[in-house]
């Protein structure tokens, strides 16, 4: 049986190509068969994790608690880019600050759980919560932007990196109200119990990835600068932080 590798479902098809190449790299580095499996939605992925079908995962920070504390995964490394959230409205919207948003507003967002959580936290100063707003779940951040431009939604939640990747034409029709600046919450590569003892070995190899041309190309295709080894306590701290934030 090959090991199973999966990535958080918040990646679009263009980024999945990079993860396929990463899987080839992983197999070579660990000298073992690894099958790359994608999931369309977070629920579906959590189901696979519960059934112990996953051995390696590039996980959303929101899932880290479940993976580490309930399923015995260990964190290996995280990329240098933390997950931040951008709240935006239509460029013509007279609103210039979160506090001016009103109850009843429609929020376009993806099913990405950490961005939804941070987005709602950023709306708290306006006394908005799940009960007095309407969530409009979209398939991608491009769709979130479209919902704002077509005025089907009043507010949009974006992964900041995804917002920045929108075309200039799209961005010119939007207006960011606030960006989160958390810095310590990021996606993480984790190993399940079957591979946990290879954590240090893999962390070293990931860290060295930026040292050669091929590794650098692979990092580019993933949109990363480099990998940062992550120790157990750093991971536990990130989990505590997310647990403190999840209402």
């Amino acid at each position, binding site marked *: 049986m090959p090991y199973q590798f999966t990535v958080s479902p918040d990646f679009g098809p263009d980024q999945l190509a990079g993860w396929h190449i990463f899987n080839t790299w992983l197999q070579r580095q660990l000298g073992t068969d690894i099958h790359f499996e994608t999931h369309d939605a977070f629920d579906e992925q959590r189901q696979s994790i519960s059934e112990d079908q996953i051995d390696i995962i590039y996980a959303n920070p929101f899932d880290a608690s479940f993976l580490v504390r309930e399923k015995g995964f260990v964190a290996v490394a995280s990329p240098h880019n933390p997950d931040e959230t951008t709240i935006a409205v239509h460029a013509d919207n007279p609103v210039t600050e979160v506090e001016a948003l009103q109850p009843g507003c429609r929020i376009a967002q993806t099913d990405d759980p950490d961005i939804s959580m941070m987005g709602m936290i950023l709306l708290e100063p306006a006394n908005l919560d799940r009960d007095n707003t309407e969530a409009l779940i979209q398939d991608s951040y491009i769709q979130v932007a479209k919902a704002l431009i077509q005025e089907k939604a009043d507010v949009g939640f974006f992964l900041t990196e995804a917002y920045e990747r929108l075309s200039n034409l799209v961005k010119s029709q939007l207006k960011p109200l*606030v960006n989160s600046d958390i810095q310590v919450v990021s996606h993480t590569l984790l190993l399940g119990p079957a591979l946990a003892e290879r954590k240090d070995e893999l962390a070293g190899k990931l860290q060295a990835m930026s040292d050669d041309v091929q590794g650098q190309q692979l990092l580019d295709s993933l949109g990363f600068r480099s990998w940062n080894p992550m120790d157990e306590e750093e991971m536990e701290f990130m989990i505590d932080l997310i647990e403190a934030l999840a209402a």
Partner: protein
Amino acid sequence: MQDMNPSDIQGEYRETTLDLYNGTQRKVLVTDMETPYPEGKLIVSRTDTEGRITHCNRSFVDMSGYEEAEIIGQPHALLRHPDMPAAAFEDLWNTVKAGRKWHGYVKNLRKDGGYYWVYATVIPNVRNGQVVGYTSVRRKPSRQKVEEAIQTYASMS
């Protein structure tokens, strides 16, 4: 804990003495200057089981007005504002010592005598089944909730 120093204070101030939980007192100097909560940020700190600060992030340092070296090793009562009723913190400690999460609105005192409001969460840090410390994460409160907290706390003290 050290008393506050008049030379650190910005503008007119009043002097009050706080009775701390450990039986000691601290002279604090208080002004009416509010520092707005920094947009998009979280103010994070961690303590050991005794409540001494072991880690704090950049926003914690910036908002408190102290240097990081003046913060590490101190209890969080370094930030205690005289407008906060003791009962709020009693509830905080009872809740986290029972292993649960505490939420509340807190008015914090800065080194310069000014203040800032936060919406705080405190959780116990559990490692291998043992509580090894506590983490607090603060975020921007709504003005309406702050006004409500001002009323509630005024009636408590």
